[in-house]
């Protein structure tokens, strides 16, 4: 099957990707399709760049592995196949009073894909990454073996597989510990801040008492307003609401792909200014359902199409320590002066809860995420940002990357050589070949 079934969210790079589906978790791994060299699991293609792509290889589509194995409503321990979407877990568990321990900004990702990128959410400062809540998994290797991996059993392989970018084998099922909730609602406060300094202060004030914190910033504002934005903080509430929990999915969608990117300097400037000004008061409080709170973008299907046929690039980095704060300022100035940033620029402080993952991205510091239309200049600009990230010992998130150099990767992930020892010999990805300089 060589078609557009297998793309990544940024729609860059574009690859005529071949793939096969695995229908049952008991099935053996298929051989790579004729004329292709290696295998790579594919979740729901919500990674932005090329961690889920394998040019010249075969991807194994896991979306039919969407069965639950067991769920204990007393303890909140859930075991399910790797292709189950987070949205399906929520549908099952929220009515029973349980929630995902960690949730990324879209619920249309598979649990296997989320594990392989060791995803983080707005509660990283308290809960760490998803990998901190994985109790066990089964790994299917190309030698035909099935390895049960837990923090105690096959602990090395477990650590390599959490955040292992699909390279250590195919995860057939995952067992996670859910978080207890009293209902589907959250109490959210949104606070305007005038500059970066205020952002850091708000984070410091909020991170102890609020489970979820995140900020949106206006990437066009310069000078004294550099880094102005809205800070959101929230907790689950015990309000027993009567909201009926039907998942209606995307309410509207981008019906076709415009022939050019709709994101340009002008549209960006007006959107960012509008968004910032929209909230009149300094502080706004509301009770909100978990869906609009965690997954605002999921209401617009295929929103990635607005970037036109050339697609987009995401950049997410983490910058540690005091130096990180200074570098963040430089980055934002660079972006504001080019007027090239995006609608959604997100800032968050990562906490110090360590993930078991060997190649895990989050580490203590401030994380910045934004997207760029794919223009000729963007690669040079991102290289500049990379130089700044390297300078402070930070890292860039592979799930969102399509272009970092081997040199950058190896400085961001010092354990990469140790990790390489756990890579299944039949597995590879476009990303992996790039960041290892094809030297393996």
């Amino acid at each position, binding site marked *: *099957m060589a*078609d557009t079934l297998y793309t990544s969210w940024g729609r860059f790079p574009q690859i005529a990707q071949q793939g096969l589906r695995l*229908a049952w978790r008991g099935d053996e791994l298929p051989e790579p399709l004729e004329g292709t060299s290696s295998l790579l699991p594919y979740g729901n293609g919500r990674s932005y760049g090329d961690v889920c792509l394998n040019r010249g290889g075969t991807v194994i589509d896991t979306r039919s592995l969407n*069965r639950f*194995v067991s769920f204990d409503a007393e303890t909140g321990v859930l075991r399910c196949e790797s292709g189950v979407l987070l949205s399906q877990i929520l549908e099952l568990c929220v009515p029973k009073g349980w929630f995902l321990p960690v949730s990324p900004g879209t619920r249309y990702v598979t649990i296997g894909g989320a594990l392989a990128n060791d995803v983080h959410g707005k509660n990283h400062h308290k809960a760490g990454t998803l990998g901190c809540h994985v109790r066990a998994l089964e790994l299917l290797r190309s030698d035909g073996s099935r390895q049960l991996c837990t923090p105690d059993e096959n602990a090395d392989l477990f650590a390599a597989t959490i955040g292992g970018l699909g390279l250590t084998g195919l995860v057939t099922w995952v067992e996670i510990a859910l978080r207890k909730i009293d209902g589907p609602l959250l109490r959210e406060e949104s606070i305007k801040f005038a500059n970066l300094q205020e952002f850091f202060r708000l984070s410091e004030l909020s991170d102890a008492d609020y489970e979820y914190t995140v900020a949106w910033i206006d990437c066009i504002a310069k000078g004294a307003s550099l880094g102005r934005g809205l800070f959101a903080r929230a907790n689950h509430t015990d309000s027993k609401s009567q909201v009926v929990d039907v998942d209606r999915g995307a309410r509207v969608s981008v019906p076709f792909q415009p022939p050019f990117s709709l994101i340009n300097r002008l549209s960006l400037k007006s959107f960012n200014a509008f968004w910032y000004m929209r909230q009149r008061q300094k502080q706004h409080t509301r009770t909100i359902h978990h869906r609009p709170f965690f997954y605002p973008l999921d209401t617009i299907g295929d929103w990635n199409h607005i970037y036109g046929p050339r697609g987009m690039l995401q950049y997410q980095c983490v910058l540690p320590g005091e130096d990180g704060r200074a570098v963040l300022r430089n980055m934002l100035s660079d972006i504001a002066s080019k007027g090239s940033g995006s609608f959604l620029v997100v800032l968050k402080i990562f906490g110090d809860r360590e993930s078991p993952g060997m190649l895990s991205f989050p580490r203590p510091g401030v994380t910045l995420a934004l997207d760029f239309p794919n223009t000729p200049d963007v690669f040079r600009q991102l290289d500049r940002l990379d130089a700044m990230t390297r300078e402070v010992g930070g890292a860039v998130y592979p799930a969102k990357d399509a272009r970092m150099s081997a040199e950058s990767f190896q400085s961001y992930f010092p354990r990469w050589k140790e990790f390489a020892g756990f890579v299944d010999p039949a597995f590879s990805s476009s990303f992996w070949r790039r960041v290892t300089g094809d030297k393996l």
Partner: protein
Amino acid sequence: MSQVLVIGAGSAIAEATARIYAGRGDRLFLVARDAVRLDIVADDLRVRGAEQVDVLVADLTDHDRHAEIIAAAMDAMPELDIVLVAHGILPDQENCQQNVEDTLYSIDVNFLSVVALLTPLANQLEERAKGTVAVISSVAGDRGRQSNYVYGSAKSGLDAFLQGMRNRLSKSAVHVLTIKPGFVDTPMTAHIPERGILWAQPEDVAAGIVKAIDKRRNVVYLPGFWALIMLIVRSIPETIFKKLSL
């Protein structure tokens, strides 16, 4: 709460349908030939809310076991409200043309085994004067085509059998549903390279099946637009049709 017997429960379409019943809290009895797959499906349905799930491993071409299947299902589910028959294979037409044994085997799986199962079942349902029998046929049964007439003829035979059974059992308020899906993206069709707009997902077909059972429909094309396509296909005169490469 309903009691639902699923024959060929490892089928992607059957599994998706069973999930809807499990979500309603119904009781299920699953029959399939692969024990491992059967347990995988049963566990999933339990988590999704089925009140009770029982399983039985059987190859349906083993006609001698049909009485046992029916007895075990009725033992576990005395009210037996719905029977969904879903097992089937899509044989390679060209291979069948060279191989009588393969041809007859696929007629057995797709037609004879269903007839063998429904013959005693129809009598029991007639006696109880209630229940639904829903059988997955195919649009391929509407007209024989050179590319898959071994499969098509089995489904066509099934259609006539169900038609007659419906006629007979309507007198005892037993509902007989013939389900005719078009192209569905399942393991049965995984070898077909292209996926166009005519293709449906098993979940969509499953929703259509449950709706047709709830509404006591007689024959349902899924998705619905296939009714129109097949109307056109059936209306082409045979003198022209035989010259087409379909």
